[in-house]
């Protein structure tokens, strides 16, 4: 861990040394311990320790960006010189936005030293126990187990100086029994809250089924999408619809429809980087506090997220959704929440006469026709036919192709319980989603071997 004192001091000194008109520096340091396993053996075990520092300068309305992966003084100075050189050679940019104003914050509420300092032996013991539990019932186990620590800091010449540190523990488990697999994943800021036993039980329940997988016809089904499946869809919607860039280019399905009802009025989607139920990160890579942004408000198109650049272009203040300065996708939501309903998951299943239970999707893609939010993807472990309110038999892999707005217009129920979904070794964001009961969801293909 670099620590807030050293990181802020290092970045502040570099800003102070910069001769540019404005200087903004952001850093993301990470230490991840990741073990991957399959069939009772660990095949990859690593510690990834790295930092990326972005330096953005402006000089005479010209922008220069450089990045490096160390906080050593000589490298940072070289990085600053490279950014200045780029700005020197770059053409001027019309109407540059001002730097975000003074904001100072240090937060370590999401940081648990015991989690990142977990002895390797303790992690191995947990895995050994999981392997034993699986082999005890004749199943096999594959997956990954990770603990990690992130530090994010932003300092600029207008007085921004902020730092946050956080930890995580996460796992993905695939339990396999004969022709069936079950999946469970979990993530928490603290290792001791991960509930590995509960997750393992969930994965085993899905695969220790008395039926072989059955093939069901393609067509439109009532579906119960569990939180991970909902997150797969809503995260894609965030990418294609809730950012200022796609909105202004009018590829977003919200463009030109603000205030219009697009979904069932029971659906409210928002982005909140401060909600402790998610993996909170209180500011963005420009050093702007994250705002809670309503994106879909009781079914109506309600808002999109901005960073400084797009906010300046379109006359809207930044909502704190800026990414590092070399990112060209524009601002995007990163902490998506769907508001909870009133029902229990089991009540939703009991209310379904004939339908499909989908724990998660595989390889969702939302680029087919973004204006219609048309998406495709596939079922994976644990998908099950529901008959007369009961889980009937596991189903073999199905492909859906579905306009998401249309699907979210026909809501039959939303669970009270929500779950945190995240892959913290890949990104800082997360989704917090309920189980969703939809009346119509179109399955257009099947997997065959």
């Amino acid at each position, binding site marked *: 861990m670099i620590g807030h004192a050293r990181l802020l001091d290092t970045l502040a000194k570099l800003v102070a040394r910069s001769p540019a008109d404005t200087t903004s520096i952001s850093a993301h340091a990470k230490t991840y311990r990741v073990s*991957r396993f*399959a069939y*009772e*053996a*660990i095949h*990859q*075990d*690593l*510690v*990834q320790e790295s930092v990326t520092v972005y330096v953005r300068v402006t000089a005479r309305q010209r922008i220069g*960006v*450089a*990045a*490096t*992966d*160390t906080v050593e003084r000589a490298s940072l100075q*070289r*990085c600053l010189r*490279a950014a200045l050189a*780029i700005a020197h*050679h*770059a*053409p001027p940019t*019309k109407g540059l936005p001002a730097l975000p104003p003074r904001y100072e914050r240090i937060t370590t509420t999401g940081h648990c030293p015991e989690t990142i300092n977990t002895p*390797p032996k303790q992690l*191995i013991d947990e*895995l050994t126990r999981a392997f034993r539990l699986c082999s005890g019932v004749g199943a096999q186990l*594959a*997956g990954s187990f990770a603990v990690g620590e992130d530090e994010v800091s932003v300092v600029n010449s207008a007085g921004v100086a902020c730092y946050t540190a956080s930890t995580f523990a996460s796992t*993905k488990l*695939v339990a396999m029994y004969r022709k069936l697999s079950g999946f469970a994943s979990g993530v928490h800021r603290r290792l001791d809250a991960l509930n590995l036993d509960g997750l393992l039980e969930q994965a085993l329940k899905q695969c220790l089924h008395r039926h072989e997988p059955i093939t069901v016809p393609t067509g439109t089904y009532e579906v119960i999408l569990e939180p991970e499946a909902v997150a797969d869809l809503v995260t894609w919607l965030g990418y294609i619809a809730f950012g200022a860039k796609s909105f*202004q280019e*009018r*590829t977003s399905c919200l463009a030109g429809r603000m205030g219009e009802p697009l979904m069932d009025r029971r659906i409210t989607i928002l982005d909140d980087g401060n909600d402790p139920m998610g993996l909170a990160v209180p500011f963005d890579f420009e050093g702007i506090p994250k705002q809670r942004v309503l994106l879909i408000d009781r079914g109506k198109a309600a808002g999109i997220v901005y960073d400084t650049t797009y906010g300046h272009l379109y006359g809207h203040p930044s909502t704190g959704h800026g990414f590092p300065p*070399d990112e*060209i996708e524009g601002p995007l939501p990163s902490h998506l929440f769907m508001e909870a309903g009133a029902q229990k998951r089991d009540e939703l299943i009991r209310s379904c006469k004939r339908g499909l239970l989908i724990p998660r999707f*595989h*390889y969702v*893609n*939302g*680029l*087919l*026709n*973004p*204006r*219609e939010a*048309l998406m495709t*993807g*596939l079922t*994976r472990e644990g998908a099950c036919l529901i008959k007369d309110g009961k889980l009937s038999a596991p189903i073999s892999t199905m492909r859906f*192709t579905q*306009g998401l707005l*249309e699907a979210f217009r026909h809501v039959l129920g939303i669970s009270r319980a929500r779950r945190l979904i995240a892959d913290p070794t*890949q990104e800082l964001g997360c989704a917090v989603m309920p189980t969703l009961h939809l009346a119509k969801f*179109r*399955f*257009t*293909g099947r*997997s*065959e071997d």
Partner: protein
Amino acid sequence: MAAAKIPRDLLGRLIRDVKRQDVDYADVRFERLLHESLVVEGDHVKSISVFESAGVGIRVLLHGSWGFASSPHLSLAHLKRTASQAISIAKASASINKKSRPLAPIDPVKAVHRSRWQIDPFEVPLAKKLDYLLWAVSGLVGPKSIKRATGHMDFLKRTKCFVSTEGAQIEQHFTESGAGLEVVAQRGNEVQTRSYPNSHHGALAQAGFEYVKHLDLIGGAKQIQTEVLQLLGARLPKTGATTLVLHPTQVVMQLHESCGHPIELDRVLGQELSYAGGSFLTTDRLGRFRYGSDHVNIVADATVVGGVGSFGYDDEGVPGRRVDVVRNGRFVGYLSSRESAAKLGLGASGGAMRAEHWDVPPIVRMTNVNLEPGQACLEDLLRDIKHGYLLSTNKSWSIDDQRLNFQFTTEIGWEIVKGQLGAMVKNPLYTGITPTFWQRCTDVSDRTTWQLWGVSNCAKGEPMQLMHVGHGAPYARFDGVFVAPASSSYEGD
């Protein structure tokens, strides 16, 4: 930016020190990367950035268990600590791992490899590169329907130095260049995108700035501006099974998803089950399974000049090879590592281990997975088609976790009527099952039509590694493929 020199002596001292610690095997990999990225949007520069990185990754095998750790600090004291960390991780895993982990043998070499280039892209003045990009993008803007016009250039220099306890000492130097354009047009509720010369930053090669000049972005801008405006008013394809001809830009994605990933042997052995999935090309199918028709010949070739999946040696020190994957339709080979090759009794590694960066260990990756050309020209492919479609430039992609059921959409298509290209079609979607699809391949075009592209964002592993891989392909023709418009009314096959 001035970059770190290769610390040869330091690496030598470090590997000798690690060897003394009773490891079964270890390697040390120094990597240095310089990446320049330019993005132009409309009449202004959107982003110019340069990223510099250097560090060392240490991988040890001890009592049948791997441990990996890395550091950007290039001092012996730091790196010794990093090595100790890798060893302690391996020791901890060894308490679970009950079996030994043999590696397929190699002859350790001392070698230097350099990719070929003519014009060093980092020596070309920034102003010249920007002027060219702004000029190209100016050819996209103008009409009111154009909502966004962007152009990009990317240049990379990567240096690797690999040493192992077996005595390998390998230095490699790679230069990559890439460029492309994208335009978005909108009228009412209709939004269309065109890319040139390929989508998803696919115009990427191990080459210098001469590659960018060769792409003719100026001519390409005119072409895609015309096409994107035409697409706003184009018809939709008819729904149903038909004959499909895929442009090389789309064959590339078809190869990537339905052949490249399922032949990764680590995936076949279950090591990607929790993330990317498994593979239908199970080990019992090697040498027996009918993957495609007789026209289908696929190789994984790390020796193709210009391919971004090419190298002299992989990140285990195995020489870059050309491996037969599908020969006359029959599945005959995997992408493999020393460990996975030994596990399958293959005798030698396929030489496919690469890491994205110094801070992650190598995993089995595609090299250049190429569909070999046939004898026909494009006109021959089209000639006997009563009705079908020619589809070009990938838009969306999706395939199941065993790599069987796929669905793709492309940016553009044309109807084929009585052997001739006809009207443009928008939003084409096609879907199928991998072996059924490739078994319906009725011909592929010749070497003059064969194109080599890159995929710059191939995601795999935990933590996720994004790898540059290559694909070469001619046009390919398939019978009985289900095609439909990508719209909310699509009901499937």
